[in-house]
């Protein structure tokens, strides 16, 4: 590739990728009342906080934001803990048929979510879990476990077995070996798994719109969709402000923990 062509190509791509982001920011800042019905290309003032206020309070993104934060943090943590314990059992402990357990737990990621939805809906309706926070947390945790398990298991197989043996000879119990040796040594892997599952739960739309309805239970992506459906009444600046704020947590996580984040992604496919 010639140097000039190469530079032009990269510049063109950067421009193509930046324009939508630029439009997102500019129009999220435009005062909703001054929005003229078509996209603005220059800054029309700073009304981001007003737009955000409308989206946050009137459209209920605020409640959902808090719910989603709860779901993503709690389910991410529980899933990583449960998955680490299962990985410990499959990799370190003498469980019979480790391959069977592996595929049993891992099978949860192989199928599209659609395959679980209808029966889950029925089960939730019967168990009075439909449209409850605890119900969503249960399914998010279950959904996050298989992949976290896969990441952590891969990481755990790289630990030298001598560590476990030495601890056993010193008379350490399983919980002690797990908490004092494996968990501290696998901090990076556990962190990558947590960030990955936090993002997955935060970004979920399908489970949210299927298993919940009330504004204080619905996850944030479902709330954003509701806001978007009311396009004409709320106005694009409000919706885009909403889109910006729901992207903030994952964007910050990504920018701060880029290394861990990408390790989580690349490990997914190794």
């Amino acid at each position: 590739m010639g140097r000039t062509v190469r530079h032009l190509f990269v510049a063109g791509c950067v421009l193509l990728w930046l324009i939508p982001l630029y439009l997102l920011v500019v129009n999220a800042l435009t005062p909703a009342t001054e929005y003229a019905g078509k996209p603005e290309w220059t800054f029309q003032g700073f009304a981001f906080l007003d737009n955000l206020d409308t989206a946050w309070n009137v459209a209920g993104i605020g409640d959902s934001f808090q719910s989603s934060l709860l779901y993503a943090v709690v389910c991410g943590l529980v899933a990583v803990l449960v998955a680490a314990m299962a990985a410990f059992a499959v990799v370190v402990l003498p469980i019979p048929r480790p391959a069977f357990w592996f595929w049993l737990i891992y099978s949860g990621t192989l199928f599209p979510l659609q395959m679980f939805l209808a029966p889950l809906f029925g089960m939730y309706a019967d168990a009075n879990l439909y449209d409850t926070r605890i119900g969503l947390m249960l399914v998010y945790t279950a959904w996050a476990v298989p992949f976290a398990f896969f990441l952590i298991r891969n990481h755990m197989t790289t630990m030298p077995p001598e560590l476990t043996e030495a601890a056993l000879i010193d008379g350490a119990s399983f919980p002690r070996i797990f908490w004092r040796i494996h968990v501290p040594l696998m901090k990076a892997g556990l962190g990558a798994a947590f960030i990955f599952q936090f993002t997955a739960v935060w970004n979920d739309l399908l489970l949210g719109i299927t298993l919940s309805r009330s504004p204080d239970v619905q996850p944030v992506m479902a709330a954003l969709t509701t806001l978007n459906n009311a396009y004409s009444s709320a106005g694009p600046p409000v919706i885009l402000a909403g889109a910006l704020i729901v992207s903030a947590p994952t964007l910050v996580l990504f920018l701060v923990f880029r290394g861990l984040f990408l390790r989580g992604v690349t490990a997914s496919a190794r």
Partner: protein
Amino acid sequence: MTGTTTPAPGAAKPTHVRRGVPVRTPHQAAKAGGGRLGGPLAALPWALPAFAFVGVLLVYPFFRSVYGSFFEENGFTSSFTGLDNYTRLADDPIFGRSLLNTLMWVAGTLLLPVLAGLLIAVATHRMRFGGIAQLVIVLPFAISGAATAVLWNFMLTSEGAVNQVLRGVGLDSWAQPWLLEWPQNTLSMIVASTWQATGLNVVLFAIGLRAIPRETVEAAELDGASGWRMFRYVTLPQLRAVTVVVVGMAIVNSLKAFDMIWILTKGGPARSSETLALSMYRETFRLFHVGYGSAIALVLSVIVVASSWMYLRRQMPDVSGTAAQS
């Protein structure tokens, strides 16, 4: 995600380890550690929570869904109809369109983000400010599918930014309601999804490029390779491992595409832009054809599993060999 892993080779078979023989496999090593680990059941409590979550909330519903696909069910009554739901699929024009759209998604999200990702990664490799360019392109990956869809909705509506630009540069005849007619609604959404997904591929390819040993490139240069020949015969083969990963993920993710379509068109107008993932949702939760929806979900599952399995078996013989055994 495409799961491609090997449970420790031979782990499925009972292993006989004599005491004192050095062993490398972790759980064999634990066995060799003597009777300290207790019986084989001592490990079960550690696996049980994961098994409970996955078993009750994923595996059981999966089989329930398979079972349900043989019934005509509307949420209140259900009757056994055998394979009727599946024969109905064959005659349903919406299912045909949906299948076609799904194929378009797979083809589109394979070609565009993978090719663009490869090109951009190669172009920015060892370039000044290349890292910044990569960061800009990867940013959309960090925002959710739903937020991306909302943004592109804003761009693609009739009075949206895309038409504004086209009219602005005098291409009035190109301006059109992007989301209201098939096939450009599906194609537009594929472009939007490319905008979001390419960044990840750029990063993955960049990691692959950095892993190519300098000596390989220098040796090729000594032999007179440069430009296209260098790319075709040196760079590309070295990127094979990354490409397998990128393509494998693209297949699975494109088949499952939901957020983007649900927010941009809801599968419409007149269900013209539905994919299998959307059709299942609409049949089950909007039209209450629960059994029929389950049948669509099963078709989709079979396609997802079969395509990723076939692809990986061809690309990574060693991995699937073990996977098939266990």
